[in-house]
């Protein structure tokens, strides 16, 4: 894992000192709220419904056990005992006092963390594959590039006041686990036949109220040229992106308005100039960073099959373990090792992605004992122990079970992605956490969940779509109608290489209708599916109509209004 050098360390400490000084001026009313707002947002500090919320960066999802313990400490001493892992590989604390924010930033800086640019109209946290460096289907380890990009984007002077937020994801595996096409810029890394590291650049994706998938604008950019190329791209956006309407200010609108070819051409033209101005990354840069992402001291271990592992278990434990193994354990690059996903979605007891301080400390302990003291945060709001000896899987499973982190629901119906919603967020029109809870409670039967198989449900409390409802196989969006909370359902969304934006199936539902609606959608799938067909494949094959009919089969709204 990357370790700060003196330059990184100085920067986060100086940033922390800068913010402390700005907070003092704010508290003395020498700085107006209007002028303070972009400053605090660029330090991850939001003013939420009830309190300040601090969003801490977890660059490309990598976290050490020491860092997680600090996050636990922050949760315990500065918040209400828990934190919320987000879809952007960040963690949020919802109950922060402004006066204490500088202290928290100091605590973070001490463990090589920060909240820089986790919000605001600037380049946000760089996200990537949570299985980077260990995934069996990886072309190359993207983390050195992610770290170089983190450094390059940190306090970039020209791009601190963009028209709107700017999100970059990096992928370099066969499967896309980064939702690459829904980012302002997606960087796809690969090696040429000659072994040269190159990047394909996608631009113009995003969710929000105008969801769009990005398009390929450039192939084969040498990795050394990424700073010059991205400077050119961001410069075109900074100069020509719309600023008159916040809803039309993302790069996707500019790319659409200009057309992909014209946008790409303008970037190309600018790149011809930035290439001569900005020093390319060098082999020395690469080595300085890449030395932190070398393989940990793996042992030579035998490959272990599931059958061999379950021999260690009592017969009554075997079904549970096998379920967990199938859903939560991933193949590893190194024989004898596995990656394990710890589920932060226990059924109906907490918001998706939430972890208590006690859990965080316990997970840090698991990371120390089972995975070289490191872990990762996933886009789906779970945590990963990336390097677990397969011989330790049974022991780990048993401990994770005791901690409430071993639910075998990864990728299943109850592995719901949800934003904090109206319980916390001042933007939200509706609550998302109770909906997630109600769905999890309704589908609590693991046999059924496993039989249904892969289905993603994404819930957003408002059109800003922090819960990424557009790319959920089933998306749920909170809408406000005359002060009442309603929920619109979309179908057909997907992430990964087959990324698609879901379509709204019809009028919105009441909160209490949602679990039954999901039930009817799933039953339709179960009745109609071919052997081995996933939910999304059935939806794409049949189209929306049969699902729509099922969803509205029992019209509670009509009933409520006395129409039925």
């Amino acid at each position, binding site marked *: 894992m990357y370790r700060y050098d003196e*330059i990184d360390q*100085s*920067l986060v400490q*100086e*940033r922390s*000192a*800068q913010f402390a000084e*700005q907070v003092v001026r704010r508290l003395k009313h*020498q*700085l107006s709220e209007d*002028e303070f707002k*972009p*400053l605090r947002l660029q330090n991850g500090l939001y003013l939420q419904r009830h309190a300040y919320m601090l969003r801490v960066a977890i660059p490309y999802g990598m976290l050490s056990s020491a860092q997680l313990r600090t996050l636990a400490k922050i949760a315990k001493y500065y918040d209400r005992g828990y934190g919320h892992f987000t879809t952007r590989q960040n963690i949020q604390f919802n109950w922060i006092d402004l006066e204490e924010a500088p202290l928290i930033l100091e605590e973070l800086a001490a463990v090589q963390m920060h909240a820089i640019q986790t919000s605001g*109209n600037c380049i946000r946290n760089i996200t990537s594959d949570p299985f980077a460096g260990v995934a069996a289907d990886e072309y190359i380890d993207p983390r050195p590039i992610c770290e170089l990009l983190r*450094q*390059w*984007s*940190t*306090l*970039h*002077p*020209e*791009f*601190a*006041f*963009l*028209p709107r937020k700017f999100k970059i994801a990096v992928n370099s595996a066969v499967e896309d686990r980064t939702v690459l096409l829904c980012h302002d810029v997606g960087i796809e890394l690969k090696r040429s036949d000659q072994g040269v590291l190159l990047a394909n650049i996608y631009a113009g994706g995003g969710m929000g109220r105008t969801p769009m998938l990005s398009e390929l604008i450039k192939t084969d950019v040498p990795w050394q040229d990424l*700073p010059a190329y991205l400077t050119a791209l961001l*410069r075109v956006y*900074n*100069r020509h992106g719309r*600023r008159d309407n916040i809803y039309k200010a993302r790069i996707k609108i500019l790319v659409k308005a200009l057309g992909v070819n014209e946008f790409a051409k303008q970037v190309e033209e600018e790149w011809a*100039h*930035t290439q001569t*101005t*900005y*020093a390319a990354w060098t082999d*020395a*840069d690469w080595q*300085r960073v890449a030395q932190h992402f070398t393989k940990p001291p793996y042992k030579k271990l035998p490959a272990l099959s599931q059958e061999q592992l379950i021999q260690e278990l009592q017969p009554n434990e075997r079904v549970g373990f096998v379920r967990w193994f199938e859903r939560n354990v991933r193949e590893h690059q190194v024989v004898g090792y596995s990656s394990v996903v710890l589920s932060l979605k226990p059924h109906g007891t907490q918001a998706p992605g939430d972890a208590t301080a006690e859990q965080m400390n316990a997970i840090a302990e698991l990371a120390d004992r089972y995975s070289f003291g490191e872990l990762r945060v996933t886009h789906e709001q779970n945590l990963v122990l990336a390097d677990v000896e397969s011989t330790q899987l049974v022991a780990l499973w048993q401990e994770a079970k005791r901690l409430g982190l071993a639910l075998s629901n990864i990728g299943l119906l109850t592995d719901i992605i949800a934003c904090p919603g109206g319980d916390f967020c001042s933007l939200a029109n509706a609550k998302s956490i109770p909906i997630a809870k109600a769905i999890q409670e309704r589908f609590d039967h693991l046999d059924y969940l496993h039989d249904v198989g892969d289905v993603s449900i994404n819930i957003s409390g408002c059109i800003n779509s922090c819960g990424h409802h557009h790319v959920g196989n089933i998306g749920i969006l909170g809408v406000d109608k005359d002060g009442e909370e309603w929920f619109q359902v979309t179908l057909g969304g997907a992430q990964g290489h087959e990324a698609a934006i879901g379509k709204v199936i019809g009028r919105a539902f009441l909160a209490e209708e949602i679990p039954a609606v999901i039930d009817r959608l799933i039953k339709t799938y179960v009745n109609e599916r071919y052997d081995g067909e996933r939910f999304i494949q059935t939806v794409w094959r049949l189209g929306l109509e049969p699902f729509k009919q099922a969803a509205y089969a029992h019209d509670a709204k009509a009933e409520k209004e006395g129409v039925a």
Partner: protein
Amino acid sequence: MSGLIRFLRTQQPTLTQTDWQIWQPQDNEANVPAGKHIIPFQYWLTHRNNQQLLERAVAGEIGMWFAATDDVIDHKQLIHAGQKLWPMVAVHFPIFRDGRGYSTAALLRERLAWTGPVWAIGDVLIDQLDQLARVGFDHFVLRADQDRELGLRKFEQFSVRMQDSWRYPRTLNSIHQAEALTA
């Protein structure tokens, strides 16, 4: 004009006085008042053949300010010609969080090879000074209510930088360069 910080690339930032005025005509037909004035580039575009204005420019009394919407690339030739004529150019910030001016300054320095002073004018606040200084600005007309003394110290908050910019190479590059020199 009060509240001007001068921070040339190789010097320390200082508070300074100037007899330059920023001129915003109420009416496009107005004449530039007497004295040294920084005038809108759009005004120059329409009046640059006016003999009187040209004479004053030759006398070193006329500078240009670009609005956030002005595209300096579109006017490359004029700006090149202006190198010999205008003592300075300025970039106007309608509001401090409109970031277009940062790219304008970077383009003036990088693509248009503008070597003279570049002033930041308009809604210029002390918390943005460091970023402004790095993309190419070397004069800063602070908004009247800004704490000028505190502003001066705002350039020193960071000892390291992660990007190449007009003012500094990224810190790592400068370390590498120093190592190369001592090797």
